[in-house]
């Protein structure tokens, strides 16, 4: 079974965009999560990313990232509530705990933990959308002129990760299928076996790379395709959608920085929680959330006459007769 985060080629604008454009767009949204502590802006950033992921067809990745991110957020809230006793609004006094001392659960500590958890979840969704929508081969090809061998090593690792995941599933199944008279298999032997198998796989993949001519010191050709009969999108690092993502990413960053300078990040955790909701905060939030529409794929324009003809034809068929030729 494939990981929901695995890259899946699709015909959407985000997949067609060059890796640099996609990274600029998703990076701008991720930067917002680090720039702001306001829960309103963080939620808006998360909404924008979820919207972007769904429009790009990465629903499974977004769902999995949300599940993992929110689980992590709950964990962070719990830990923060137990470890930090600052804040005016004490919800519970849990007495003396070993190592932690006096534990007071405050609403402020919970709110601060929630913000940290929310930020972590937003970042996870951003990486999930990146992982599911940006072709790693194109990323590595873009990096190859800068660091060829490192890019190839990364390429190998990116190939071996799903292979190792599949191996792990098979090994787990085999462990479940052992007869009751066979020695049971714990996690340590399974992990050792998985490691040994991965090394074998790595050797096989390395042999394949040798056969593909990796050891040759050939000049690296620039990754630009001249327009021609044989051109396909996988050779063209540039896409007509690039400008959209560069502009959206730049707009998000400008709005975020301007909002920050104008004080739109009004959030105070201690001693009492204060969340600013002035027009600047709302404007920045709306702008960031709307940026999630960037991967929207517009269907091809259809002329009105064709549409009308199609409607008439459908009516004729519906009326019971075959359409006339």
């Amino acid at each position, binding site marked *: *079974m494939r990981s929901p985060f695995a890259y899946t080629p699709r015909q959407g604008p985000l997949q067609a965009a060059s890796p640099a454009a996609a990274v600029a767009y998703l990076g701008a949204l991720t930067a917002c999560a680090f720039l702001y502590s306001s829960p309103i802006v963080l939620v808006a950033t998360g909404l924008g990313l979820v919207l972007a992921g769904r429009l790009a067809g990465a629903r*499974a990745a977004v769902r999995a990232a949300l599940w993992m991110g929110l689980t992590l957020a709950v964990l962070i809230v719990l830990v923060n509530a137990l470890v930090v006793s600052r804040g005016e609004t004490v919800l519970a006094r849990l007495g003396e705990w070993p190592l932690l001392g006096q534990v007071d659960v405050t609403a402020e500590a919970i709110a601060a933990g929630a913000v940290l958890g929310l930020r972590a979840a937003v970042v996870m969704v951003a990486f999930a959308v990146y992982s599911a929508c940006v072709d790693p081969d194109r990323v590595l090809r873009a990096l190859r002129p800068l660091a060829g061998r490192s890019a190839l090593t990364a390429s190998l690792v990116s190939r071996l990760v799903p292979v190792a995941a599949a191996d792990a599933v098979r090994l787990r199944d085999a462990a479940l*299928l052992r*007869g009751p008279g066979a020695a049971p298999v714990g996690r340590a032997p399974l992990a050792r076996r998985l490691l040994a198998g991965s090394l074998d796989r790595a050797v096989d993949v390395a042999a394949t790379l040798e056969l593909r*001519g990796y050891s*040759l010191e050939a000049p690296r050709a620039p990754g630009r395709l001249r327009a021609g009969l044989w051109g*396909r999108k996988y050779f063209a690092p540039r896409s007509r959608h690039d400008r959209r993502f560069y502009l959206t990413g730049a707009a998000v960053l400008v709005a975020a920085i301007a909002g920050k300078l104008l004080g739109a990040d009004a959030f105070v955790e201690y001693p009492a929680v204060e969340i600013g909701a002035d027009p600047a905060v709302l404007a920045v939030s709306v702008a960031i959330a709307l940026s999630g529409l960037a991967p929207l794929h517009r269907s091809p324009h259809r002329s009105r006459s064709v549409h009308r003809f199609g409607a008439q034809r459908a009516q004729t068929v519906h009326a019971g007769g075959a359409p006339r030729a």
Partner: protein
Amino acid sequence: MPDLATSTRAAPALAIAGLTYAYPNAGQPALRDVDLHLAPGEFALLAGRSACGKSTLLRAACGLVPHFHGGEIEGRIEVAGIDAIAEGPGELAAAVGYVAQDPETQVVSTTVAAEIELPLEMRGDPPSSRARAVEEVALALAIPHLLDRAVDTLSGGELQRVALAAALVTRPRLVLLDEPTSQLDPVAGDELIWLLRRLNEEWGVTILLAEHRLERCLAAADRVIAMASGSIAFDGRPRDFLTWAQEADQALETPAARLFSLAGIEPLPVGVRDARRTLASAECGGETSRTPSSLNFFGGAGSASPGRIDEKVQAVRRGSDSSSTTVVEVRDLWVELVPGDAPRDVLKGIDLDVHRGERVALMGRNGAGKSTLLKTVAGLIDPVRGKAECPADVALLTQNPGDYLVRERVGDELPGDAGLAALRLVGLEHAVDADPRDLSGGERQRLALAIALAGRMDGDEMPGVVALDEPTRGMDRARKADLVELIGDLAGRGAGLLVATHDVEFAAAFAERVVLLGDGVAIADGSADEVLSGGWYFATEVARVLDLPGVITPEQGATALSQSADFPFRSAMRNETQTQPPSEGGG
């Protein structure tokens, strides 16, 4: 002075002289004094039992031996005029393409297009020529629709084609293939072989193909090279190879050749078409001869002595005592999996009963749902509807027996009396102190089966179900015969056998019943003789030659030929003879 391209075109595709090679720390050489010369445009088949040196020879021809594996080497290897021992695999990459048995390990990119493009990119070709080369090779292999797919969403057959495309995209003069059909169903396997033949004929690519299922590819080959113990034991035409194998190693005979051999008909056929023509020619008084001590083709009562392998197979096919006790009961089974983005119904309302002592072959194309059905019966997958009930235990051996071996001593995998009993059942009680990695491939498989069976036996009885998933991958015929014998033994102890396999000849050897799956639905369920003689792809070679209901093995075919005074095949053969004259190598 001729340039390099001109000189390499004039050179033989592969020239090996006096090659002896030993892997590092190996006790004995894997190749011994090998001499081989392949002319440009030849299609050569590399035959031989497991571990006879076929894969090592292919690895030497593409430069992996000795550059990647190390070891000691003597002799000379030239590929298209390039010294393969002095240069490395990278330098040879433009002249030779290599496709290994397991396509999963020879794909390094995320998408199909990137994978095919990689060799050209490494070579520094400009993007425009890369684009054209990828497009052309994709068209040649009929995979343009796969170019934008992620490699981990492809089936085994599709992945094998992508690996072949990556090997061909540099337009090499020599293509080496190491059992490329071992993981493919009969349809995909036949398609791949004829694709290779077309590339050979239209592009002039020299092909060196190592295979165990010779009946699948002998008719496509111009030449057969048989190896034994690291040396070349035979090198000649396919028909001469069959005559040689009849005497030297019956494990290398094809079923049709075995049929003719048992029936005493000569010459031995290299393929189905050749066999049918020979039979037609015999009836019309052609040059076909019959050996005096053989079975009488048209009704005499001669005798033929099948070899040890066939005796094992026949003993199993004679059958076990099947009783009516049901060990697997599957009713209206629906299973949904998520192989890609969207969930898909892999099994659609399957009904199946397996009885005690019954041997059932589960067949069908790649992705038909065979493995899913076995895993559901074993309880690894929950159905979305219906039930799969087994009153007793289910022992399932999956496609990779190595997954069961996690310790460094056989006795540590199977401790105690139950473990020893399981080892005894599979004939490995002598290997208690061995390291599983030191066992042969067949022994490792039997050890994995023992691990699955341990503790599930009741004395000498095996009350439950034994399920095997593609157990013959990479096996030669002798090892398959051993497996058939083991299956017969398990069935004799009361186990119901449910075996998923692509190998039609293997199914004919062990199964009494065949269930054919198509896209998650059981499209045929009947006796092996009936199902395996009633189709084109899921039919044995003997069935395709004779086209007689219920005749699927060479022994059945020979008996039918010897006993039938009014042989119904004759009229069909007469028509074929009138339209097409016999040819030397056609199949």
